């Protein structure tokens, strides 16, 4: 689907100046990273920096692929879209709130990290899947009427 032809249109008059500026910013960033090594700890920094990309490209994205593959084989086509959307939104919300929901952080103060985050996440899931249930009912009805028509 993506052939090499689509990669060609790069306008040098746009690309060259922006590439120069962008590379200068990156060099400034790496210079700052290494010249502040006492606080930026480049070893740890690179582990998490590259680790984030590796975790995405080889764990999260293949996981999404697998979930999509399973959905295709198990869910009738007219019900698929709402389920995919709700599943993805739930998963992303979990990733974004995971440190709170699973209690990874800690604080000795009752006004910090004092909420019931798992309950909050459950509430969010209920909201997402209630809307999804309505969409599924509608999709199921319209699927049935289009078949009987």
């Amino acid at each position, binding site marked *: 689907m*993506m052939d090499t032809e689509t990669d060609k*249109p790069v306008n040098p008059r746009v690309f060259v100046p922006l*590439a120069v500026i962008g590379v200068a*910013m990156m060099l400034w960033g*790496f210079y700052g990273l290494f010249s502040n090594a006492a606080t930026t700890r480049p070893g740890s920094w690179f582990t998490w920096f590259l680790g984030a990309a590796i975790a995405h*490209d080889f764990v999260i994205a293949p996981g999404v692929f697998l979930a999509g593959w399973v959905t295709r084989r198990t869910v009738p086509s007219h019900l698929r879209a709402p389920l995919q959307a709700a599943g993805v*939104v739930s998963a992303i919300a979990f990733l974004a709130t995971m440190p709170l929901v699973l209690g990874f*952080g800690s604080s000795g103060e009752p*006004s910090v990290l*004092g909420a019931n985050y798992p309950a909050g996440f459950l509430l969010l899931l209920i909201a997402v899947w209630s809307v999804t249930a309505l969409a599924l009912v509608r999709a199921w009805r319209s699927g049935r009427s289009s078949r009987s028509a």
Partner: protein
Amino acid sequence: MVRQARQALSGDRRPGGPFKQDAFTSPIHSERVGAVLGIALGVTFSVCFITGLLSDFAQNAPFWSWWPARPAGLFRVTQGIHVTTGIASIPLLLAKLWAVYPRFWKWPPLDSALQAFERLSLVPLVAGSLFLLFSGVANISLWYPWAFFFPTAHYWAAWVTMGAIVVHVGAKATIARRAIGGRGPDAHEAPGDGLSRRGFLGMAAAGAGLLTVTFAGQTFAPLRRLALFSPVQHAAGPQGFPVFKTAASAGVTESAVRPGYEFTVEGKVATPMSLTLEELRALPQREVELPIACVNGWSASVRWKGVRLADILERAGAPSDAAMEILSLQEGGLYSHSHVNAQQASDPATLLALEANGSELHIDHGYPVRLIGPNRPGVTNTKWVRGVEVL
């Protein structure tokens, strides 16, 4: 050797699995979806970058410049936007990466030097974007699974990532314009039976909206009831606002309540002074409403009462253009002192606060005396103040 490598890479032997041309069938893997999400992320990351630079400037202004005292609520707004926009970017970034994911498995991987450069710049782009959002979320959740100091690591990562974004915009501007204008090779969506492109974009937007609504209440009071994931609980703090660092964790539970407390004014002043708590209370008391706005993104409006810093400086005969360090009873650490520039020091709303929301300062809010000033990041409103050193 380069030619050999090239031949090997561009040969006919296209591997299977995700490298296959039809491995990814969904219509969402299109230029148009990538362009729409790319533009959205360009906006959100730029907003985060600018507000992040402001936050750094507010805390580490170089000697030849100063962070203004007005508008009083500026930092509260910029930092609230920084954190909320970062959180809203999570669904957008993951959706964008999924939309372009087949290109990660493109075969042949490289077919020109320009493309080699462009693909290489994707490493800091993807790694940096994920790193910034991940480290930001972990930081506001008080989770530190790494060895670096978050502010500096996040700051320098932002320069690397933003640089990669600028390169990427240069490389993709033409394609994005073509795709948005509906002139791309896949402008017309092939009928599919899963999520459509529109549905996919709607899903990303819904995810961003959902996270915004459930986080933003930590700083935006009208949404407080929906703030399921606010790291602070406003009502649970003493005197109705949160405490980030307690007296116990700062090691001042004894020194803050010691009977012989004296507030000192020293350094470049005509008459160095020393005032007891009673003497501070006997000075003219002013009342101001100012937000306490944390770099972590939460904020709260508080009614403060205390002595104007400018009044004390005048009594001690400090020059009107003097900058100073506010010193805390907290020993060592980054927050044992804070810098106040001349403009902030002369602002009538900059107080040495003795009361908050109508009652004497709670020890966790900085008893006996804390600094509060307009447009100052929360951590620079030093608690358990023991004195001022005029520079």
